[in-house]
Structures are given as C-alpha cells and as structure tokens.
C-alpha cells in the first residue's frame, strides 16, 4: 500500500468573526446544552414516565441497584473448581504456582489414601494477584479458572485478602460460563 500523507488542517484560519470569541462560545453552549436537553428528556422518560432502562442516554450505572454486564472473557477472582462430590479438582501439580508472574499462589501438596494427589493447602494471595489468567492457562485439569467475581476484591486489611482453599472452592455450576468460554474459545482445538 502506498504511503499516504495527510496535512492536517491548522487552526490559523480563524475568521474575524470567530476571533470575537462569541460565536464559538455560543456553539459550545449549544453542544453542551443539547446534551443537557437530551439527557434530561431521557431521565424524565425513565423515572417520571416509567419507560425503563432502555430510554436512558446516560451511560453511567446506578451502581448498587444496577449491575454491570460481565462478558464471558472477563477475568475476575481466580477460584478453584470442585467436582461433583464437592472435592477440588486440583491435583497440586504446581503448574499454576510456576506460571504465576507475581508468585501469589502457594501450594502444599499431599496424597489421599487412594493415591490421588490433592492440595493440603492452597493459598492465593489476593493482594498480589494481578488477574492475568496465566494460572488458568497453565492448569491442565481446569481446576483453577478466572471467575466473574469482582466484589470484595479490595479490603482494608491485607490479611483478609489471603484466600484459603475453602474460600476459593466453587462448584462447576457456579463457573459454568467461564468453563464454556475457555473450552469453546480460549483453549479449544479450533484455535489452531
């Protein structure tokens, strides 16, 4: 493709009329006030006339009452997935620990009576986690996934941000959306 160069338009062509400040001030006021009028109308429509959420032209959410829509790709708090019996799928292989860039995962592996490996303790330091999703990528068992949980990620006390295995455990149904996403999209055979 040939290199195209575009000389930008300079603002030196201000006419005498524009130099008198007034027309541009009036034009600016026209823009902001038209926003004001549109938004006022939509607010009246929504709250006074009860036309509902769709009529709103303001993009801000009334946060605690309204919740944002979280896309399936969203990476929230990393959680451990449990199988049907409520036991974690994790086999304490340590791949997530190795892959984690800020080193926020600490695993102490153990062995059950039937010979299955399991994490004796699984600690995720939420105050260090950067939500990069590399643990999810590294896990061969789909045992740790990035959930869509984003509440209470911040605490006043750092000790409250250190998550133990019990607090991280989620049933498969709870993270089904994310599991579907990574199976069909991120880590599926169609990718390559």
């Amino acid at each position, binding site marked *: 493709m040939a*290199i195209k160069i575009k000389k930008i338009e300079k*603002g030196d062509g201000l006419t005498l009329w524009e130099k008198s400040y007034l027309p541009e001030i009036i034009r600016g006021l026209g823009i902001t006030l038209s926003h004001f009028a549109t938004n006022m109308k939509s607010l009246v429509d929504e709250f006074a006339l009860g036309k509902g959420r769709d009529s709103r032209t303001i993009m801000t959410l009334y946060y605690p009452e309204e919740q944002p829509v979280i896309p399936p790709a969203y990476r929230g708090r990393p959680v451990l997935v449990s199988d049907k019996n409520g036991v974690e799928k994790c086999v304490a292989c340590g*791949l997530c620990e190795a892959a984690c*860039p800020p080193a926020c995962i600490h695993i102490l592996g153990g062995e059950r009576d039937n010979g299955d490996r399991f994490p004796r303790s699984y600690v995720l330091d939420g105050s260090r986690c950067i939500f990069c999703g*590399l643990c999810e990528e590294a896990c061969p068992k789909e045992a740790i996934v990035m959930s869509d949980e984003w509440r209470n990620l911040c605490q006043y006390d750092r000790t409250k941000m250190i998550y133990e295995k019990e607090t991280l455990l989620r049933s498969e149904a709870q993270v089904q959306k994310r599991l579907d996403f990574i199976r069909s999209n991120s880590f599926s055979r169609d990718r390559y």
Partner: protein
Amino acid sequence: MSDNKHNSDFHKLHHTELLTLNMGPSHPATHGTVKFLITLDGETIEHLDVEVGYLHRGFEKECENQNWNGVFPYTDRLDYTASALNNVGYALAVEKLIGIETPDRCAYIRTIVSELGRMSGHYTNLAAGALELGALTAFIYFVEARELLWDVIESVCGARLTHNYVKIGGVFSDLPPTFEGDIKRVFARNRELWDEFAKLLLRNRIFVDRMRDIAPISPEDAKAWGFTGPCLRAAGVPYDVRRAQPYLKYDKLDFEIPIGETGDNYDRFMMRMEELNQSMRIVEQCIEQMEPGPVNVNDPQWRQPAKDNIYTDMESMIFHFKNAINGVQVPKGEVYFPIEGANGELGFYLVSNGGGKPVKCRVRPPCFQLTSAVSFLVEGAMLADLIPTFDMINLIGGECDR
C-alpha cells in the same frame, strides 16, 4: 548550577530574585509521577528540570525473572493507557526471535487490538489535555468514548486496562461473536463524540490561543531529540513505523499518516485527533478483510494446547508442562523489534540464551525521549504553557520509568 547562570546581573541590579517551585511529584498536572524543578521569573519559566523515575518498578529486571510468557502481564503496565500495543510489540519481538509467523486471522486481530489500544491512549491523552485546559465537559465526552471502547476491549480481552491478551504465537482467544456489531455501534457513537469534542475546542479562540505556537519544535530539533510518533509527525516528518517498516497487516491497509507544520501543541493535538479517525478506518478495514481461521500457530512448542488435548495428545502434554514450568524455549540470539506505539516508536530489544527466560529485555519507551525535551520546549514560555505542553508530550510514568 542554574542559579549562577540565571540570577543574572539584571536580578542583582534590581534586587529581585527568581522563584523556585517544586512542581510534583504529586501535582494535579503531573499525570504519572514526575517532578519539575522550575525556576520562575514572574510567570515565565527561566529554567526547568524534569526529574523522572518516581514510577520506576524495575520492569526490565523483573522480566529477567519471568519466563517468556510471564512477561506479558508486565508489558501491560508500561503504557497503561494503550496496553494492547505493548503486548503486541513484545509478542512480535519474541516471534521474530523464534522465527515463527502467526496465522492471518491472528495478525488481523492483533492489528485490531493495537489500533483499539492506540485509540484508547489517544482518547486518554486528548481528554486529559482538555481537562488541563479546564474544558471539563470535553474531557468527559472523550472519557465516555474511551469507556465505550473499553467495553469492547473488555469483551475481547477480559480486562479493561491490563489486557494480557496477546500470547507468543497467537492471541488468548478469538474475537467474540458480538464484536462486529459492538464496534459498529461504538464507532458510530465515538464519531459523534469526536465531532462534538472538535466543535467544543478546535475553533474556539481560547483553545487556539492556548495551543497555537506554544512550544514549537523544528523537524531537525525533533529528530535530534529522538522524537517519534505523533510529536515527530507534528513537526512535519512523516515517519510512522507502520509504514516505514510494516508489520502485522499494515501493508494491506489503507490509511494516511497525518503530519503537521510547526510542531506546536496545536499540531500535536490535531495529530492525535486525526489518528483517531485513521485508527477507526483501520479497524473497519480489518474487520472487512478478516476471514475465519485459526488464531494461534499450529505448533505445540510455542502455544498453549487445548485443555482436552493435554491428557490425550502426547506432544501437547509434554510441551504444556515444559512451557508452564520452564517457559517457552526461545532459541539463542538477540532481536530488536519496533512497533508504532501510541506515543511513538516502541521497541523491544530481547536477548535469549536459549532458555525459558529472557536474559535481557530492554524497552525503548517513546515518551522517555519526548520527556527529555520538555525543558527545551518550555523554557521562556509561561508557567501555564507547561501544562498543555507536558500533556501533549504525554509522559506515561509506567512507560518512561519502566
């Protein structure tokens, strides 16, 4: 140092003295954390020292302790207003070192996210520029535009600010099915907001007086200071890495390089305004040209296997465990790969000894060179001129200090 030089005979004769001001490290105008040591004569800046380094997090050293894929989250935090661009730059550098070529669709997706990243960077910069001139409504209009863009980015990458989307040999996931519709809707709205932003400012004499002929730079000086990106193009040099050294799919795309005349703040502002339009065009063309297909290289050595392949496919299993524990084994060698970042040429210089971790990961941050020229640009100007100049230089602490 400067005191002897600037406390000239005039000041001695009139028993006056210059005022030394510490602007920053915490000051409303120093986005990021940077300190200016200003010597003022009335309102005129006699001398200015920029002190950077307050946001130094040891990025380059940190990389030496991460495996090749683990560096991506850190590159996000270089230019955090346009983090996808850093991802892409680093990935391209590593791939050049390995010598692999990503599939077509992947290249298109990377082009799209780079341009979205560039747009987000420019939106942030222009909005902050308006804010610092006191035009709060214009600021919010562009923040709204950026917010809409981030919604799309979030649906693609999973995060609004630190995407960590690009991987060695591909991207994390394919575009979501809603992507095309979202982009159409968002771009339509963003074009409206662009128009309103332009109408609020560009012909307004207050704005023009604040920006025109403030801190101009000649093409020669700009080159000598190592300017790249919008600031260099504002001085009239049509240098753009996307054209000078095409990567990804840029040679198949039709876009224009905007250039300015005098290299003043107004030109720099206009440059970014125009690049927003060009970026939107690029994204639209990419969506048009893109065809369905794989988004990762088909070689288990470099990319993550599918989850159900890990236990069924021998090769996948071996490389998955090896890559996760030891990192991707990048061949020995060194490489420099520049891309066009939001602020200019963003280059990654990587050295590998054949192991799983980079031996050296050096970044050429575009705004470091730009920041070094701030004192050259504003000496003799007024205190109030420093603010828009500094904004148009667009120091991003994470990128400049690393």
